[in-house]
């Protein structure tokens, strides 16, 4: 699971859960795979993310170094920052671990890089 995906996941479908966001990450295995750097792509994607959630998620798995807590304007000109974001969004992957719903404590296992977000009938609203 890449952090860009984590930024969009929620457990709001669970019965009794109001927002279910963000999910806490507990990573037991993290993989870093290099992929081509595309600064324009990163620049375009940033406005679509919840920055605070990304910042906290990156820090929680030990990859938050160099990321500012709040995003400065003109970030698109800061190539160093874009490179760091490229790494944390696209190259860092949680291979094994789990995600936890902040309200209900329900855990979603991550195995072989894939988070299992399936819910049982009884769990959904």
């Amino acid at each position, binding site marked *: *699971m*890449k952090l*860009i*995906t984590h930024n*969009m*996941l*929620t*457990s*709001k*479908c669970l019965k009794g859960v109001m927002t279910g*966001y963000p999910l806490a990450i507990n990573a037991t295995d993290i993989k870093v795979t290099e*992929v*081509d750097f*595309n600064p*324009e*792509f990163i*620049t*375009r*994607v940033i406005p*679509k993310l919840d920055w605070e959630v990304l910042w906290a998620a990156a820090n929680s798995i030990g990859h938050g170094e160099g990321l500012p807590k709040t995003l400065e304007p003109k970030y698109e000109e800061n190539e160093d920052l874009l490179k760091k974001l490229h790494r944390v969004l*696209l190259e860092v992957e949680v291979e094994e671990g789990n995600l936890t719903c902040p309200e209900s404590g329900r855990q*979603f296992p991550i195995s*072989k*890089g*894939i*988070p*299992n*977000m*399936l*819910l049982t*009938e009884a769990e*959904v609203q």
Partner: protein
Amino acid sequence: MNDENKSLRKRKRFAARLKSSKGILCTETPGKYVVLCNAGQATGLEKDYIFKLIKEKELDIPLPKFIAEKGESHSFLVFPTSEDCKLFYDTFNDKAKADENGTPLYMTFVETVPNTEVICQHENPKGLHLLNNFITSEEEKIFLKLFDWNPETNNLKNRLVRHYGYEFRYGSNDVDLNNPLIEKIPNECEVLWKRLSELGFDVGVPDQLTVNKYQPGQGIPSHVDRHSPFEGTILSLSLGSDVVMDWKHHSGKYVPVLIPTRSLLIMQDEARYDWQHGIQPRTWDPVIDHRLENGRNIKVITSDTIQRQTRISLTFRWTRSGPCQCTYKTLCDSVEKASPDNLEDKLASNLEELHVHQVYEQIAGHFSTTRHKPWPKVVQFMQGVVPGSVVLDLGCGNGKNILRRNDIVQIAGERSSGLLAECKEHIRGISGADCVRLDLLNTTLRDETADVVICIAVIHHFSSPARRLQSITTINRLLRKGGRALITVWAKDQTKSNYLLKSKQDQLNETEPETQVTVAGVNLPVHENRTQFKHQDLLVPWKLRKVNENKLSSQPDNTLLRYYHVFEENELDDLCKEANFIIEDSFYEEGNWCVVCKKK
């Protein structure tokens, strides 16, 4: 000397391969584990060969546990002690033959062996009673003599059958009560009812018997004995061979059960009415172990296998007439005939679990080999996505619609873990792509998160109008304002596609009644592949072929039925409008209705 060097190099290469592929380290120090470097499942090695070696040399060691993973040309042995293991190594390394050509078997000690055991999470179905050693070996011989026969009679597609009392009619899965057979259940069986009654099972005397003869490699597809033609108890006596029977429940539970020879299986209650059972068509079965862990008795499906022998099963039933009175709705053929149009949500979900989710899990490998190419219209749509967009591919299957673009985010969501594993492999190296296991109806993604959603050949698997609408409403919820979706579904009208095969259509015998299967109280016709659809809600057979070393086996092993709701013209458009979408484009493409729509 030269040979020794060669052998050393060979071992080093093997050790490096094993370390990188399995993380298993080879060692010079003798322990309990040894790997046979050039003999395994893929080279045709069987456990019996190893046992034969040990017996021929009259080695005084217990038989080891044998671990041969599918598709691998090496295998592992586990001995009780390192002394036993060393004696085996010293006796056979470079001395025994690995194959018929006389290549020497070479081996090395290893620190660990792969753990391929699976713990069975669920208990046996309620109402399933297995009475081991129900008959003696002497009695088994008598029964075998009585019921075994030569292959010329009554050949069913994949096994031999004969009937007593009434003929069991395959197709309608019942008996004709007006046409009893002259041959009744033989008197020799009376001992069975007496013994059952002594054990407290007061079931009376059955009036119908079907005898099946299974050769190793033959099986029976997963099924429930039809409810209304038979009473609440069904008995199965096994002769000649052990076998593993798989039990499946619509809640997703899956339980393999070892049925030993000379045992009597009693199916009542849930096991009789609410579970499906079947036997996989293979020549071997996994060894099932029972262990005590933390005071709990657990069932472990080991990687060890045992060869099947010819098995004869006697299935005793009690015939009846009138509608079934059971309380289990999902598999009953007598519940008020529901139409899929007003199917209760719970039943619709059960139907999909059995005839969509479980089927895709089983066919994932084979399915994927038949779905390489994305459809041109989907590619065209995906190529038009503007850079920086967030795209969701819901029901992505093996990920064939994910483009190799590094300027968009592509999140692939899928329910089947088998297909998703293929997808994960497929998207490797695509920078903005990732996989999530999810269900479209309860998608665990934030509202208004996507610029684009594609949902290709998915919504036709939802079995009620409410669920089909819910799936499209979910797509709407996930899109930002102005975001667009491409949705495609299978069309009922196949005349303008290359799906139809004229020869198949001509062969169709219009007078022959169609096969129907009752699921969740709905009678679903089984479709004849490559012919025109006659109904909107139906089951489409998938002839499963195994993938072995990247090759498809030439013969299907099993036929699985996938549920489809095939769409009429404008039906998809109407659903999209109901979900508050603006239709931008609507077209028919190769047997599919396709809609491009925009969120208001």
